[in-house]
C-alpha cells in the first residue's frame, strides 16, 4: 500500500517540481531529497507543501515541520498515511 503511494509521489514530484532526466523508478525512496539526492531547494519544499494540500488535503508549515516530513519520499508517504483526511 505504501509502495503504491511512494510511486505516486515520485511521479508527482517529477511532474510538479519539473525534475528532468529521471524516471520515478530511478528515485531512491530512502535517499535525502534536499542537499543531496534530487538536490531540491527551499522553493521545492514550499511546492511540496502545496502538493500535500492539493493532492492529499494536508496542510503543514514548511519552516516548522518540513525538514522532518520531506526528508525522503518514504517519510512523506508515511506522513500522508498518518494524517490524510478521509
Amino acid at each position, binding site marked *: 500500500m505504501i509502495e503504491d503511494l511512494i510511486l505516486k509521489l515520485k511521479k508527482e514530484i517529477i511532474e510538479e*517540481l*519539473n*525534475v*528532468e*532526466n529521471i524516471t520515478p523508478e530511478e528515485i531512491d525512496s530512502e535517499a535525502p531529497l534536499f542537499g543531496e539526492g534530487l*538536490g531540491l531547494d527551499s*522553493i521545492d519544499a*514550499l*511546492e511540496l507543501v*502545496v502538493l500535500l494540500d492539493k493532492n492529499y488535503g494536508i496542510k503543514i508549515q514548511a519552516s516548522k515541520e518540513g525538514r522532518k516530513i520531506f526528508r525522503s519520499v518514504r517519510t512523506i508517504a508515511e506522513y500522508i498515511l498518518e494524517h490524510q483526511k478521509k
Partner: protein
Amino acid sequence: MKLQDHRVLLNGIVEHASEADSVDALFRSVYRYYHIDYPKFFKMDNLCKLAFLSAEILLQGTDALQKYPGEQIGIILENASSSLEFDRKHQESIRDRNQYFPSPSVFVYTIPNIMVAEIAIRHKMKGENTVFISERFDPELIYHYVSELFRNQRVSCCLSGWVECYGDHYQSFLFIIEQEDKIKEFKGLQEYVILNTLNVEKLLEGKPR
C-alpha cells in the same frame, strides 16, 4: 548575440536554426544544441529560459568572464512585457476559491528581475543589476547609464540587452559592453564595434514589440 525567428546569431553568424514548432520546444532544442547541463533550467519560466540561453550563447562568443571578476560585471536588461506570462499563470491559479493553490515556483517568476538573477547565479555576476521596462529597446538609456557606471567605477563590464518573451512572441539580443581603455590591455579580441552618441541609434536599432 540574437535569438529570434528560431535562429541563433552570434557575432553576426547564424549558429543554429531550429525547426521546433513551439517556444517550449525551441528553447529545449537550443539547450541541447549547446550541450548545456543545468537541471534548474527546467524549473524556469520561458522568460528566464530565454535570458539564460541568450547569456550562455553570448558568453561563449566573448572572453568577458575571463577578463573581469564577477563583482565587476553588471547586468542591465530591458523588456516590454515584464513577466506577464507567469503573471497570468499565477492569476489563473487563484481564480477559483474552490481550487485555490497558488504555487511558489510560479509566483517567484512574477517579477522580471529573476531573469537577471538566473544569469547572475549561473555565471557568478555580482555587480550592478537592473531591469527596465519599455515598449522598445532604449539604447540611449543603456549608453548613458552604463557610461555613468563605468565613470564611477561601479562596474568594469556590463551584460546588456533586450529579453522579451510572452506567449509565442520572443526576442532577445544581448551584448557585452566594455571600456575602450581597458580592452587595449587584452589580446585576442573578438570582433567589436564602438558605441558612441553618433552611432548608438543605428547600432542598436530598437525593435518594436
